[in-house]
């Protein structure tokens, strides 16, 4: 990303951001509410257009992106079965017309088994719990097989077991050489599972190794001094 700025209405959400996520890297995006984490992901996917600057995706197109929006963006009351939802991961290959090949059917089956949802595949998505739902969306991403994966708050309001399954899946994707970017509120989790971190904080945003960006002492520092406004992260520039 070069000199990226994004306005929503008259409000500048992202200001002059320069970041480059290396191919095959595993990064977390952290930042206070309203610091532009979701906006950044939506800009990378092309759902939002930057006001200035540009997003370049090397070696591939936007169609090679897997994007997991926050859960609230999915209409969970729509009558679609778990199986069909997961199968929609094959959209790029099947489109509006093509039938599923036997190979694709077994891929769907495998993804459902991995997510622990095989016995629920005929249920409507509205009947799933929060954890099951999130595992289902991960199964769709697995099936979609994208080169780069963007996840927006995937760990929000899910149980510990599901977080474990999701972290395992992310680790597997990482080992397959995919580029992964995850927005998360959970700083300890970012510290333990993500080698790189982007801290979004207005013009003082910074990107680097997670242990530098979120050093334990600095985290402790922030917790001791909530005076940094509504921010739940350090409001200082990082060396």
């Amino acid at each position, binding site marked *: 990303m070069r000199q990226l700025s994004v306005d929503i209405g008259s409000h500048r959400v992202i200001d002059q951001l320069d970041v480059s996520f290396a191919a095959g890297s595993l990064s977390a995006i952290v930042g206070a509410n309203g610091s532009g984490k979701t906006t950044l992901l*939506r800009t990378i*996917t*092309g*759902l939002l257009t930057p006001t200035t600057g540009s997003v370049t995706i090397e070696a591939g197109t*936007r*169609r090679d*992106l897997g*994007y997991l*929006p926050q859960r609230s*963006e*999915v*209409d*969970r009351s*729509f*009558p*679609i*079965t778990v199986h*069909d*939802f997961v199968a*929609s991961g094959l*959209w*790029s290959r099947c*489109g*509006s017309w093509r039938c599923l090949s036997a190979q694709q059917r077994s891929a769907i089956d495998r993804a459902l088994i991995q997510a622990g949802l095989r016995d629920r595949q005929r249920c*409507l*998505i*509205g*009947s*799933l*719990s*929060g*954890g*099951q*739902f999130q595992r289902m969306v991960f199964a769709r991403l697995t099936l979609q097989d994208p080169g780069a994966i963007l996840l927006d708050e995937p760990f929000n309001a899910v*149980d510990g*077991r*599901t977080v474990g399954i999701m972290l395992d899946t992310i680790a597997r994707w990482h080992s397959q050489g995919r580029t992964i970017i995850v927005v998360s509120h959970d700083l300890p989790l970012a510290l333990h599972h993500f080698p790189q971190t982007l801290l979004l904080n207005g013009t003082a945003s910074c990107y680097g190794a997670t242990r530098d960006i979120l050093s334990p002492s600095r985290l402790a520092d922030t917790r001791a001094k909530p005076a940094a406004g509504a921010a739940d992260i350090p409001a200082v520039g990082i060396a």
Partner: protein
Amino acid sequence: MLELLAGPFLEFGFMRRALAGCIVVTLGAVPTGVFLLLRRMSLIGDVMAHAILPGVAAGYLLAGFSILAMTVGGLLAGAAVALAAGFVARKTALKEDASLASFYLISLALGVALISIKGGGRDLLHVLFGNIFALDDGTLMLLGSITSATLLTFAVIYRPLVLECVDSAYLGVLGRAGALAHYALLMLVVLNLVAGFNALGTLLAVGMIILPAAIASFWCQSLAGMLATGLAVAVAGSYLGLLLSFHADLPGGPAIILTLGGAYFVSILCGSVSGLLMPRKSTAPIPES
């Protein structure tokens, strides 16, 4: 008894034509309505019903009582309002619902004004509430063509439309299919309203789109179930409505919509999915501990 139920249709050609017209309209209107309902866009149908009126009126002014001229006019006006309202909502601070509401009020006023320039109150009533007992061959062919086009379009956009309804961000990343499906659905709404207005009039046509879908949502949870139930309800409603109209000497369109309305109230009370008299089944997801 048989005389009561089948007699009017055996005896009178206009009753058979009315029934055929209703069934044809139903085939296109019900799937359109089910998707509108699931997308929470039910009111859009109502808005578009008003929006086609000035086009119909303009056709009437230019060519007299010609079904073709009024249909083309209605199509153009409906498409124009749908696109204009969407455009205003995207480019200004006004939300799409407020923008649509403004457009349809203006359209309604314009339509009524245009019709009253030329015709008397009788023509106005005909356009607003339709005359199902006056369907001629040409009109039936027109309805059949619109329904065929609708069903073919649904065959093409079914997958992207479902995905767009469930998770529009997912399709938005992968291309334009979702947005195209959305606009195609809006166009189908206009098309089916225009078909419906020939049978039920501009104001009641929307009833054939929304009511069967709303009734079906009380009885079925799956998409296929809703589509099938909606169709069955709409066909049964048309038949019973026409009988009611014949025996009680009521106008056809209102009789059909009232019959569907009766089914709707029964569904509110007894519907197996969320009817008021049914034992509460929690549809909320069970939280995992």
